[in-house]
């Protein structure tokens, strides 16, 4: 699933490790999310949405 995580992270000037710390996950997890190869669970998607202060659907775009 496509997402804007890399852009949102860059806007805040966070490294992958910074975002990983804020989400309490590993840096590999952040990388897998950003490349769109791993789709997060709903709890993790909500955590991301809260962290960026944005609705989930503006972070993740389903390609239907």
């Amino acid at each position: 699933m496509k997402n804007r995580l890399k852009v949102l992270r860059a806007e805040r000037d966070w490294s992958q490790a910074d975002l990983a710390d804020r989400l309490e996950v590993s840096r590999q997890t952040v990388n897998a999310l950003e490349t769109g190869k791993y789709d997060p669970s709903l709890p993790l998607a909500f955590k991301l949405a809260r962290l960026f202060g944005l609705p989930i659907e503006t972070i993740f775009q389903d390609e239907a």
Partner: protein
Amino acid sequence: MAKKKMSPAMRRYLIRFFPAMTAYMGVLYASLWWIRHQAPEGPLLWALGIAPALPVIAVIVIMGLYLAEEQDEFVRSTLVQAMLWGMGVTLAGCTAWGFLENVELLPHVPLYLVFPLFCCSMGLAQPLVRWRYR
């Protein structure tokens, strides 16, 4: 480069794993020594015979606990995939070996080697599974 941090679940896993492996080596050695030198019989032989399996079973439980306790869902997901690969390789390998053993092309292999085979194939699968997400 940022230092790689260990999750609390991984720390607990290692704290449990190393005593279990140490116990395994101690129990295995003691049980073999006793059986060889004292020639026990009956229930004592049963107890000494099964003893080395108990720490190995503990390691299986410790692996299961890690999977249940790990909070990073991506890490959990890649571990489960690696476990499935390990399981597939072990089941396929043991089945093929068994049939070849049946026609006397291969020697008999003790069943206690099945778990190490699972661990090795899972360990080899882990970086390959991770690599797919890079």
